[in-house]
């Protein structure tokens, strides 16, 4: 399944997630390679968001969630050998709805670093510019960094959220349907930044938009009812899926 020589960034073994007795994810095994964009497609209730949220232990915030199995990040067990806070600094997350905190653009970006006790104004300023540039937002906001982040347009807000994650210098970024509320132009900008970030980060993208998966994913996985039906290079999944159910989903026969 994995081409030789590719470094494995995240290794998932028999991962299951259940919410109050209802299983959302059944014993998943999956390796995510360093520097790839792994797209995850599938209908609702297929377990793709549960999977994503177990990679940065956000599932733990749901008191009814029970997670079993192991997830190794660079060989380190994320449940046992690292704190949730430290893990989330390395594994950023972009949510479906952009949620700028009710702070200025600058303070939104520096929120994570400030929580990690970075106080030096020069370092923070450098992080602001660097992160906004990487999220393709710098030119639009560089003259109004003290404006509230919530006054930006929806597409700008999502790029602000991406920049905010980048300020922590994560290795991995998780996208949970990041463009579901965005117009095509904003979507294109987000996708452009993803392709650029891929050079230095590992990205996992959960999306309901199969076309988006086809555009940006290096590999694509198809989830259905808590199981991974198929995974492979994006080209192959979209042209010659080996499982009938994958094909049905891609051509829109169900879902």
């Amino acid at each position, binding site marked *: 399944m994995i081409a030789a020589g590719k470094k494995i960034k995240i290794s998932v073994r028999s991962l299951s997630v259940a919410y109050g007795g209802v299983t959302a994810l059944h014993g998943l095994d999956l390796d995510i390679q360093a520097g790839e964009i792994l797209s995850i497609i599938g209908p609702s209730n297929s377990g793709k968001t549960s999977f994503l949220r177990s990679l940065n232990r956000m599932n733990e915030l749901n008191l009814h969630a029970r997670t079993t199995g192991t997830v190794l990040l660079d060989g380190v067990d994320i449940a046992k050998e690292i704190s949730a806070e430290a893990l989330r600094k390395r594994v950023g997350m972009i949510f479906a709805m952009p949620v700028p*905190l009710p702070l200025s653009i600058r303070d939104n970006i520096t929120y994570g670093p400030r929580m990690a006790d970075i106080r030096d104004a020069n370092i923070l300023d450098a992080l602001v510019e660097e992160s906004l540039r990487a999220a393709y937002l710098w030119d639009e906001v560089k003259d109004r960094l003290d404006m509230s982040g919530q006054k930006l347009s929806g597409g700008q807000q999502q790029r602000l959220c991406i920049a905010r994650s980048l300020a*922590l210098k994560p290795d991995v970024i998780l996208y949970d349907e990041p463009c579901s509320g965005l117009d095509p132009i904003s979507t294109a900008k987000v996708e452009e930044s993803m392709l650029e970030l891929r050079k230095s980060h590992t990205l996992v993208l959960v999306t309901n938009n199969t076309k988006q998966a086809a555009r940006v994913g290096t590999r694509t996985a198809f989830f259905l009812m808590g199981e991974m039906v198929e995974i492979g290079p994006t080209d192959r999944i979209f042209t010659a899926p080996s499982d009938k159910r994958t094909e049905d989903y891609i051509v829109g026969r169900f879902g």
Partner: protein
Amino acid sequence: MNRETRRQKIGFGALLLATLLVVIPVIAIVALIVTEGWGALSWEFLFSMPRDGMRAGGIFPAIVGTVYLVFISLAFALPIGVMAAIYLSEYAKDNALTRLINLAIINLAGVSSVVFGLFGLSLFVVFLKFGVSIISGALTLGIMTLPVIITTTREALRAVPASYREVSFSLGASRWQTVRHAVLPRAVSGILTGAILSVGRVAGETAPILFTVAAFYLPNLPTGLSDQAMALPYHLYVITTQIPGIPEHFRYGTAFVLIGIVLIMNVIATVIRSKAARKR
């Protein structure tokens, strides 16, 4: 006029009438107190000691006592109430203990104020030997106002979108950092609303201070927490029912000052609140 429009008009009229019925008593009370009490107001009334068995002079010690009681009881109840609300809203799991605590808070809110007075008497005055004193009265008032502060603070915390917490956690913040930086700043104005409501109750209650702090008459101002104090609501009761021959406008003047103090404190809190809201 068709039926639908007529129904609309009748409905609108009924709602307007109900609203007016609510407003009328408020206006009537304020008008009565202002017109009757205005004449009593003077420097002497506000800033001098009572004389001639309280039939002349001022109400200064009662004003001082009420201000002390408001500040000291809030200094005790606000931090404890806010911390309890933070615990219940942000930390506590939904289990039997939490439900029991919630039930206790709701019941505390329903206890009548004279029972708080009795409780303060037995706990602070007698058992802890604080005596009839400002500290006993302030603690009793503080306990009485705790449920108000806890409930309004929890509502304020609950009104902060869950997505703010989620974002904060996803950026590597700990639970306390999330509460401190992502949640609390957004809840300050709601918390202050609770404080405003409490000021009104603490300043105006008579029963809880009856056994714990209030003095009929004191020749001197209180000098410390263990002194007794006069207080406006109790003073109003005293000059209205216990002493014959007091000029009518003294009572309304006292009521006017009581309402005025609550109003001034509310204005101060509202200014702080709007400053906090603007800082967002």
